[in-house]
């Protein structure tokens, strides 16, 4: 059975591109265009990994990180932050809130992100 990846990102073009790429590598993709839906899907779908943008509507990435870490049902799900913010403060804050890895979109190709996904879920 293919592993589920939840991608929380409000840019539909990025959702589509990442979704296609993940599917071509055999993953099942769950998409959330805002923070609240993303948090809800993380609990109900129990994905193998979450890809999380930081700047998203309704609940930002930091709030989601913090909520998912507090929730015993989602605490163990590895989270990769995927954003275009790369300030020292943002990186430190996201990692301290429980993100496994922090990737800057503009510095990674989709293939490189997939490599990080595989490594994070132990493939």
């Amino acid at each position, binding site marked *: 059975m293919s592993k589920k990846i939840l991608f929380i990102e409000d840019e539909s*073009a990025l959702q589509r*591109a990442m979704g296609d790429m993940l599917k071509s590598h055999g993953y099942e993709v769950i998409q959330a265009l805002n923070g609240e839906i993303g948090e809800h899907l993380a609990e109900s779908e129990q994905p193998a990994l979450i890809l999380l943008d930081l700047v998203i509507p309704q609940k930002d990435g930091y709030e989601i990180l913090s909520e998912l870490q507090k929730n015993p049902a989602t605490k163990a799900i590895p989270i990769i932050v995927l954003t275009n913010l790369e300030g020292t403060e943002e990186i430190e804050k996201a990692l301290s809130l429980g993100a496994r890895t922090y990737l800057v*979109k503009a*510095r990674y190709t989709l293939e490189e992100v997939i490599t990080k996904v595989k490594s994070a879920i132990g493939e």
Partner: protein
Amino acid sequence: MSSMFRDLNVIEQCNKLKVSIWECPHFLFVVMGVIIIVSMLGTNIIANYYTEPEVAVLVVMSVTGILFVISHVVIKSFERMAEAAHARSEFISIISHQLRNPLSSIRWQLEVLLREQTLDERTRSYLDGINEYSGRLAKLVNDLLTVSRIENERLMLTPTPFSLVELTQKIITDNTIFASASNISFNLQIQSNLPPAFADESYIRWALENLINNAIRYSTPRTTVTISIAKQPPFVMWRVINHGTPISSDDRRYIFKKFFRASGSARRHTDGSGLGLFIAKSVVEESGGTIGFSSDTAGKTEFWILLPRATGKNNKSSAVIKK
């Protein structure tokens, strides 16, 4: 010598700063110097006419007051320039961030499209072109952001031990097509038993890519770019040598300045931003290393980097360095 005279030309210096003459530190310093000389002479003359100490005190106090006012104007002028530089840097940072999201979108969608096996040759060739140019644009935006971070002292480096040899081999592989198109070959010389380097691998990769890219770009066709890696305790030395356009003596002192491009390079190569060597120097020095170069009139140019080697101590303390 001529540059020294240029530095003394107050009007030219003020025009360069684009501030009014009464806000220009160069001019105000000259005014202050003149006032000091005149006041000293005046005090001497007055002291010869008036023997009362009150008069001398009054003169000294007046001159001090004038100098105080001018100093205040000079400091304000510096503050304004510093604020303007900070605002410019912030502006670049905000604009670059805003450009990044649509650029990431374009590049990721292109990446998916280019994986399609069914594309006809013409479509693929157009998409390759768009991909190449959006890649250049992304690199420029990333470079501008890195410069802005260096200037705002917010560059974040995460040093870890890594193999300079493996990194260099990867970069050479990535540049093979570019070198081959320019009729340039590579020669990699590696000393045995090299220790790993200790720095932020992704930024060092960026610096080495720039140096190798420049070496290819400024080489004469049918020559070889030689890259060597050797021990130089407590460092690991990485060097790249090419044969081609030498760096002129006028250009040497500016080579690591941002937005600087060697004489004539703007005409010959239109895709350089002039940021590469500035960022390379900042990153290498912030990693505890050094960077330098030499260039002879015969056209042999060598850039070298010394990076700290990984030791038991720094392996354990791979902490984040904040500049």
